[in-house]
């Protein structure tokens, strides 16, 4: 297409906006409300350009062939200046003392480049809202661009913010006019990220970003007033603030990293000043999250500088305490004791557990230490507790143990089915994609869960089966599909094996049987079957609600079977997605810290594979499979496992049956724990090695969508702590190995040629925000969507796998209630990171058990009462929260408690027989009231967003602005 801009011809692309055309040709026009992740909002009118004598908004006007655009002269320029004057009526410019002027303040830079010299600021008179522990809203600085509203409503779809265009001076409101801290705001912080000015500011950066921004507010206000009194032109001060903003780059360091919390793999720049974490700033180029974050990723980094951080190695003394020691002494002790145990009882008397929040390089070195230095295959990782059954199910059916597509496939699906996952709290940024697809594009959503969580509230269909019966639901759907002739016949014939046997295995799963076992009415099962049949593409997401059952592997397999049956693999917008809960749950197994597997899932039992690694490492490798994490516990009880090396896993809290774990850890001859804090597990150690946080090291993670991404070092390790890879090397060298890695990139250079799945991974290919999704060929090519041509089996075909239903532990007369458990948005894992964050603790200060209203009424319970929960394994004590998120005799206890409310005081020793994952979700309990709260007081404070009601809106609703009597449309300017 040919267009002319300022009389000069330009090539235009079909479908692009005038704004995009101008940007591509280096022609600047102001654009305050436009954001690449949000699209055109049309609220600021600063991008007005003249086309054929008419003023139009460049952001929202597509180019047309033959267009003549005047962007920087005459009428257009005047219109832009008028729009800027209106913007500046709403925002007081004091850039030199503003924490937002860091070179990227949209308004400052626009004013400077346009040469605007003055403003006629009029305060709006609304008070500052400082109620949130995380951010502040200053309405007097708000230019009502609506970016925050659009982000909240249609990007992360938390649906809290709106713009009140009916007010004399429009402003942003939370819910229907609540204070921030009394609203449904989940503190994702995305509004702060997209705000182009300092109206929405993260509290952590206030007073920190500039040389003079930390002045006392009363003095700052007087200074600003004094300057405003005398200034006749912005010019000198804009020069000063622009230069100062430039100089600030020497104060504030910006480092790209990958979030350390869940497995979505959000990436962002972390801004630091010395050791302070000022803020987290995601970018449109972040592949998994763009500009979205959740409360933990955006605001949850206080733990990095916690005074509780371990900074020196600790050695247990005879008199019941730890003493600090040097690294030389600690590593020498570790080497001596491991050698003694090995000499006495053999290398298999030692077990090593890698961390799911350690890097890929650290996983590789952990398994290399275990296999090549200690001489044992007893190496595993914490995915044993949660994700191994999902991996098992996928291995059995499609070949690769990972998500079969990317997050964009989930967003593109016609139907998303969520089974056993509280996605909005455990994987908030991923859930945003589902919510967005549903809200903006009509994607259908079905949820199977025991709890009515946010995704269940939003679902087109919410099924609440009896606990532990998901497999029956799925197989009944499969049988119904077959009975109706809805199976994907051509797909099955050409791309699968084992169909006949599978079909026969579904015979018992009639609707009658399913109704009886699951408690679901048959029409709900039929409806879900119909939804899958009618959809053009279905994705099934699942998590611990499926995997932490005795039949976790079976149910995961059933999910894959159903997807194969309906042809929902190998195409965009289809597939199976086990949602990995930790930053590197996927990678720690991918890179070999997994029983029975070397890096890239190459079997330790394969002699050719062993030979390859023996040649590379220069040692003879042990044969056999080794013990996984759960088997190590059994071996320790039998006296066969005498020593353990645990990294980044609070095993006493994470393993089931805490009483049993206490005996196991206490009974070990030698225990080494590598951690950031003196966790409950570290308190059992003989030697504690202080590890660096993720912000303090380099490396790579693999996210839930198989995406390999780099993290860069933002801070030096605190005190004497070291990155895990350096510590593991230290242990190896103390044991006589000649490792001499000086940087994690060398580890990747070593392992990539040995690991076909990661053959093409190099640090250069992962520079900045670049990423690769495995499998990655040697030339660096890869694909988000798996199985488009073949499944990961020798003949390229998927395999139906016959499943069996394992009945969950039943309730009984003695233990008549069912205890479910899981994650909360505000906390992470066992809380070692998040209980140290004042803002998060303010939102969720303690644990509680959710009790349904009907159960509370029948037991005489109310909010705040203290109860004891007792299971066959032990007991716990906590407060009651009455809520309809649970129903009947099903309770819910969040998993983040460490003391008396720790959930694994109650879990039993039942496991998934295939994956050996504890059946954490199968806990029958009885409940006794211990103490009555005089006045019903929920253990969750009223400032928790769960008590407020969201305010769904279509977005900015700019039409309301245009309808205001004081608004002059462009055509009339």
């Amino acid at each position, binding site marked *: 297409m040919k267009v002319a801009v300022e009389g000069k011809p330009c090539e235009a692309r079909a479908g692009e906006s005038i704004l995009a055309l101008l940007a591509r040709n280096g022609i600047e026009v102001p654009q305050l409300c436009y954001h690449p992740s949000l699209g055109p909002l049309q609220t600021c009118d600063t991008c007005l350009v003249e086309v054929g004598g008419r003023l139009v908004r460049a952001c929202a006007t597509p180019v047309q062939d033959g267009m003549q655009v005047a962007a920087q002269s005459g009428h257009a320029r005047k219109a832009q200046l008028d729009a800027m004057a209106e913007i500046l009526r709403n925002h007081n410019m004091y850039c030199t003392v503003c924490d937002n002027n860091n070179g990227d303040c949209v308004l400052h830079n626009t004013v400077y480049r346009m040469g605007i010299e003055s403003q006629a600021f009029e305060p709006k008179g609304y008070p500052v809202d400082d109620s949130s522990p995380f951010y502040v809203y200053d309405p007097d600085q708000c230019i009502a661009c609506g970016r925050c509203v659009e982000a909240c409503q249609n990007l992360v779809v938390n649906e809290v913010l709106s713009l009140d265009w009916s007010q004399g001076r429009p402003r942003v409101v939370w819910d229907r006019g609540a204070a921030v801290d009394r609203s449904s705001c989940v503190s994702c912080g995305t509004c702060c990220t997209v705000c182009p000015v300092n109206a929405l500011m993260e509290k952590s950066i206030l007073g920190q970003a500039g040389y003079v921004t930390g002045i006392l507010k009363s003095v700052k206000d007087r200074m600003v007033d004094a300057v405003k009194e005398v200034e006749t032109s912005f010019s000198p001060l804009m020069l000063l603030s622009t230069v100062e903003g430039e100089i600030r780059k020497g104060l504030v360091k910006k480092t790209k990293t990958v979030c350390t919390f869940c497995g979505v793999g959000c990436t962002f720049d972390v801004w630091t000043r010395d050791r302070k974490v000022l803020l987290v700033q995601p970018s449109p180029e972040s592949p998994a999250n763009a500009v979205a974050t959740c409360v933990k990723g955006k605001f949850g980094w206080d733990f990095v500088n916690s005074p509780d951080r371990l900074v020196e190695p600790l050695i247990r003394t005879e008199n019941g305490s730890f003493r600090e020691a040097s690294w*030389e002494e600690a590593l020498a002790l570790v080497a001596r004791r491991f050698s003694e145990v090995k000499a006495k009882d053999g290398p298999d008397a030692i077990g090593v557990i890698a961390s799911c929040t350690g890097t890929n390089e650290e996983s590789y070195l952990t398994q290399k230490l275990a296999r090549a230095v200690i001489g044992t295959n007893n190496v595993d990782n914490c995915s044993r507790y949660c994700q191994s059954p999902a991996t098992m199910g996928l291995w059995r059916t499609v070949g690769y143990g990972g998500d079969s597509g990317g997050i964009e496939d989930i967003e593109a699906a016609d139907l998303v089915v969520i089974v056993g996952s509280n996605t909005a709290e455990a994987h908030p940024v991923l859930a945003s994609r589902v919510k967005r697809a549903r809200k903006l594009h009509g994607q259908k959503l079905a949820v199977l869960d025991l709890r009515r969580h946010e995704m269940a509230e939003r679902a087109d269909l919410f099924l609440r089966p009896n606990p532990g019966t998901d497999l029956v639901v799925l197989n009944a759907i499969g049988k119904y599909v077959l009975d109706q002739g809805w199976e994907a016949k051509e797909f099955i014939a050409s791309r699968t094996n084992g169909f006949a046997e599978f079909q026969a295995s579904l015979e018992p799963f009639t609707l009658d049987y399913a109704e009886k076992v699951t408690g679901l009415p048959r029409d709900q099962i039929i409806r879900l079957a119909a939804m899958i049949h009618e959809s053009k593409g279905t994705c099934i997401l699942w998590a611990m609600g499926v995997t932490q059952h005795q039949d976790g592997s079976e149910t995961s397999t059933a999910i894959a079977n159903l997807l194969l049956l309906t042809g929902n693999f190998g195409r965009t917008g289809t597939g199976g997605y086990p949602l990995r809960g930790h930053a590197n749950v996927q990678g720690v197994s991918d890179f070999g810290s997994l029983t029975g597997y070397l890096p890239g899932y190459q079997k330790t039992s394969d002699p050719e594979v062993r030979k390859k690694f023996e040649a590379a490492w220069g040692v003879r490798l042990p044969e056999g499979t080794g013990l996984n994490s759960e088997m190590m516990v059994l071996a320790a009880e039998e006296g066969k496992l005498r020593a353990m090396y645990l990294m980044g896993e609070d095993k006493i809290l994470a393993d089931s049956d805490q009483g049993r774990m206490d005996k196991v850890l206490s009974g070990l001859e030698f225990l080494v724990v590598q951690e950031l804090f003196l966790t409950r597990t570290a308190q059992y150690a003989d030697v504690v090695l202080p590890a660096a946080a993720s912000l303090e090291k380099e490396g790579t993670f693999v996210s839930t969508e198989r995406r390999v991404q780099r993290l860069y070092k933002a801070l030096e390790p605190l005190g004497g702590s070291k990155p895990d890879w350096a510590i593991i090397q230290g242990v190896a060298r103390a044991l006589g190995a000649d490792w001499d890695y000086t940087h994690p990139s060398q580890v990747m250079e070593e392992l990539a040629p040995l690991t076909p799945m990661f053959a093409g991974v190099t640090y250069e290919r992962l520079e900045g925000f670049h990423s690769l999704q495995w499998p990655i060929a040697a030339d660096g090519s890869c694909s988000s969507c798996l199985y488009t041509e073949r499944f990961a089996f020798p003949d390229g075909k998927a395999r139906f796998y016959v499943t069996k239903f394992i009945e969950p532990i039943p309730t009984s007369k003695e233990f008549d209630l069912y205890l479910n458990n899981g994650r909360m948005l505000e906390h992470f894992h066992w809380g070692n990171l998040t209980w140290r964050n004042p803002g998060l603790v303010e939102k969720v200060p303690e644990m509680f058990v959710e009790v349904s209203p009907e159960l509370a009424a029948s037991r005489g319970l109310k909010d705040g009462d203290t109860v004891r929960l007792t299971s066959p394994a032990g007991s716990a004590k906590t407060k009651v929260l009455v809520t309809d998120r649970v129903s009947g005799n099903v309770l819910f206890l969040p998993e983040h408690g460490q003391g008396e409310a720790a959930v694994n005081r109650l879990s039993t020793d039942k496991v998934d027989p295939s994956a050996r994952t504890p059946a954490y979700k199968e806990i029958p309990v009885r409940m006794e009231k211990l103490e009555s709260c005089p006045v019903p007081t929920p253990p969750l404070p009223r400032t928790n967003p769960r008590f407020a009601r969201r305010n769904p809106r279509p977005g900015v609703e700019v039409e309301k602005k245009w309808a205001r009597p004081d608004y002059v449309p462009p055509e009339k300017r």
Partner: protein
Amino acid sequence: MAKPIATIEGAPASETAEKVQASAEAAAEAEFRRLLVLAHERGVLQGLSHLLEEPDAALGTATDWATQPGNLAVVKHALRFYNTLQSIDPRAVQELLNGLDGAAKAAVTTRDDGRVLGFWGLLRALRDPDVNRGMRFLLRMAAGLGRSVGKPKA
């Protein structure tokens, strides 16, 4: 049996301190220490420390000073002067300055014959092309001044 413990005894000095840097770095450190001593002897460090410790007081003082009416007027004048300088055409200023230069030189170098100049003498002087040109320049300046002064105030 290893009971869990949560107490850490006081720490000895770390034996893992890094070794002293190379001699070039040691020399740089020595020079930096000398710089610090000099700054201290001249009171620079103390002043900076005070400013950093109590910036609000200093800034508050400076602000209060600047907002005294007389001082405020000075600052306003200075800024107005700055704005005026921004808007003046340098070429016009150059022409004026050249003219003043010529005028000054002529006044100094041309001999004054002491005769009293009456009305007719002025008219005769206007016939001199240079004098006439000079008068026209002055009249243009007067017109410009009059236009500027006569503009309605913003």
